[in-house]
C-alpha cells in the first residue's frame, strides 16, 4: 500500500511539473492532448459510476450536451458567467436525469432496454439542439463568445497551462468521488440491485432511490465535464457533444480500460485519445473516414478479445483475490 501511495504521489508530482518540462515545440500539443485526456477521463469515470452496476447508459452524450449548451447559451446571450451557468446546467441535468431514470427504475428497464432507451435519449438531445438552430447554430455548432483577454469570470485563458491545471484538479476530484462511491454503502446496495432487484428490495434496499441517485450523480458529473470541455475548446457542436457517436466513445473508452477499477476509465481514455490522435495525424485530410473505420474495427476486436478491459485484465493478473466481475462474466462457450 505504501508503495502504491508513493507511486501515486510521484505520478501527481510529474503531472504537476509537466507543463514546465522542456518539450520544445511539441509542448503546446502535448498539453492539449493531456487536457483532453483529463477531461474525458473525468467523463468516463462519471459514466462508470453507474455503468459498473449494470446501468449501461448509451446516452451520456445527452448530459454532456445539456451541460455544454446551457452554459454556452447563457454566456453568449445573457453574459452569465459559466460558473453560475454550470450551476444552472447541473440543476437542469439533474432534473432531466430524474425524468429519464424514474420510469426506467420504477418499471425495471434494465440491460438492453436501458441501453436502447438511453441511446434514444442522447440522440433526441442532439436533434433538439439541431432543431433549435436559431439559438444553437444547429449542426454548425456555436462558438463561445470571447471575453476581453484572460478572464476568470468567463473561464477563458490564452495560456493552455491554466486549463491544464484546472483539468488536472477536475480529474483528481473525479477519482476522489469514484473512490468515495466505491467505499460507500451505495456500492454494496447497487451491487445487490445489479444481481437481483427483487432480492435487494426484500432485504430493505430502496431500489429506486439508489438507482436514481447514482444516475443523477453520474449525469451531473458528466454535465460538469461537458462544461469544462466547452470552455476549453470554446466551441460546441451537437455531433461532438451529444448523440450516439460521443456516447459510444465514452463507453468504449471505459470498457477498454476496465470499468471496475479506479484507473480503468483513465487508462482507456488515454489509449483511445492517443489512438484517435495517431490516426488523425497518420491520415490527415487524405482518406476521409479511414481513421474512424480503423477505430471501429479495433473497437470490435478489443471487445471480443479483452472483455474485462486492459487495466482490468492486467490488475487481475497481479491481484491475489479475484477482481469483482459481473455475474454474467465470460464463460467458455
Amino acid at each position, binding site marked *: 500500500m505504501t508503495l502504491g501511495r508513493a507511486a501515486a504521489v510521484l505520478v501527481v508530482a510529474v503531472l504537476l511539473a509537466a507543463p514546465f518540462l522542456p518539450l520544445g515545440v511539441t509542448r503546446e500539443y502535448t498539453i492539449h492532448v493531456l487536457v483532453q485526456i483529463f477531461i474525458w477521463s473525468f467523463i468516463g469515470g462519471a459514466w462508470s459510476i453507474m*455503468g459498473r452496476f*449494470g446501468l*449501461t447508459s*448509451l446516452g451520456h452524450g445527452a448530459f454532456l450536451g445539456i451541460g455544454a449548451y446551457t452554459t454556452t447559451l447563457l454566456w453568449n446571450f445573457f453574459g452569465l458567467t459559466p460558473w453560475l451557468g454550470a450551476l444552472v446546467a447541473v440543476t437542469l441535468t439533474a432534473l432531466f436525469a430524474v*425524468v*429519464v431514470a424514474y*420510469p*426506467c427504475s*420504477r*418499471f*425495471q*428497464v434494465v*440491460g*438492453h*432496454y436501458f*441501453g*436502447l*432507451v438511453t*441511446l*434514444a*435519449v442522447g*440522440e*433526441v438531445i442532439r*436533434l*433538439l439542439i*439541431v*432543431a433549435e438552430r436559431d439559438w444553437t447554430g444547429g449542426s454548425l455548432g456555436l462558438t463561445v463568445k470571447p471575453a476581453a483577454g484572460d478572464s476568470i469570470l468567463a473561464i477563458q485563458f490564452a495560456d493552455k497551462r491554466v486549463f491544464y491545471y484546472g483539468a488536472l484538479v477536475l480529474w483528481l476530484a473525479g477519482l476522489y468521488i469514484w473512490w468515495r462511491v466505491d467505499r460507500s454503502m451505495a456500492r454494496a446496495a447497487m451491487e445487490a440491485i445489479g444481481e437481483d432487484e427483487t432480492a435487494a428490495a426484500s432485504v430493505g434496499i430502496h431500489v429506486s432511490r439508489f438507482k436514481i441517485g447514482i444516475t443523477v450523480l453520474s449525469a451531473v458529473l458528466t454535465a460538469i465535464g461537458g462544461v469544462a470541455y466547452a470552455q476549453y475548446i470554446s466551441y460546441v457542436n451537437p455531433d461532438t457533444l451529444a*448523440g*450516439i*457517436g460521443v456516447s*459510444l466513445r465514452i*463507453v*468504449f473508452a471505459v*470498457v477498454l480500460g476496465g*470499468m471496475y477499477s479506479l484507473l480503468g476509465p483513465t487508462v482507456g481514455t488515454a489509449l483511445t485519445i492517443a489512438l484517435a490522435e495517431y490516426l488523425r495525424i497518420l491520415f490527415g485530410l487524405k*482518406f*476521409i*473516414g*479511414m*481513421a*474512424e*473505420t480503423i*477505430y*471501429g*474495427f479495433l*473497437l*470490435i476486436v478489443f*471487445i*471480443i478479445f479483452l*472483455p474485462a478491459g486492459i487495466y482490468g485484465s492486467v490488475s487481475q493478473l497481479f491481484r491475489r483475490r479475484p477482481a469483482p466481475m*459481473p455475474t*454474467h*462474466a*465470460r*464463460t467458455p*462457450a
Partner: protein
Amino acid sequence: MIDPLFLAEAAINGLLLGGVLALLALGLNLIFGVIDIVWIAYVDLVMICMYAVYFIVQVYGYPIWLGGLASVALGALLGIGVHLLIISPILTSAPVNQLLATGGLLFFLQSFATFLWTTDHRSVRLDLPRLEILDMPISVARLIAFVLAVLVMLGLYLFLTRTYIGTAIRAVSQDREAMSLMGANPQRVYLVTSAVGGAMAGIAAALLIIQYAVHPFFGAAFGPITFMICVLGGLGNMVGAFVASFVMSEVIAISGVIWSTEMGYVIAFVVFIVMIFARPGGLLARRS
C-alpha cells in the same frame, strides 16, 4: 392554423412510413427475441444494402426488382457474417460488451461508407405515375413500399408459424435451455435467425431507397426511432412492435408538418417516455 388537408396528407404519409419502420423493428426484434442481443448497427446494415441497390439500379442500370433481390441476398449474407464474426464470440459476455461490439460495427460501417462513397446523398429515381386522392398527392413509391412491407411481414408470420425452422426459432425465443435439452442445435437456429433478420434489412433497404436518399449517416437517422419502437412494443414482442411502428410514424409525420422534422423526433421521444410511464411492459403488455 394548419390546413387540415396537410394534416391528412401527413397522416397518410405516416401510415405509409409506418409499414417500412415496422419491417425494421420486426427484423431487430426477431434477432433480439432469439439471440438476446440488440444489433445497434442494424439500420447501418440497411444503409449498406441501400448503397448496393443504388449502384445496381442507378449506376449500372439493372431493373429495380433485380436490385431488390440482390439487396435481400446481401442482407442475409451480412446477417450471417455479423453473427459468425462478431456475435458468436461474445454470446456469453456482459450486456455492455455486446452492445458495444455492435456499436463498434456502427462506427465501422458509417466511416467505411464515408471513406468509400463520401457523404453525398444518393437516390434511385423511378418513373412512377402520379396518384391523387381527394386533392392529396400520394407518393406511389411509398404506397408500393407499404404494400410490399405488409406482404413481407405476412410472409414472416407464415414462416415463423408454418415451417419447421420457424417453429424452432419461436421455441428458442421462448426457452433457450429447454430447447437445447430437447436436442435442438441453437447455433443453427441463431444462424438462420441472423440470416432472416439480415434479409429483412435487405428488403427494408430496397423499399427505403425508392423514397429516401442514402448517405453514410442514414443509420443515425432511422436507428434511434427503430429502437424506440422496439422498446415501446416490448423487445421481442412482434405484434407490439408492429403497432408501435404506426403510433411512432404517425407522431413523427404529423408533428413534422406542424413544427419541423427534428422536432417530430423530439416529440416522438416525449410520447415514448410518457407511454413508458403508462405502459411499462410495452404497448400490448397486460398488467400483472
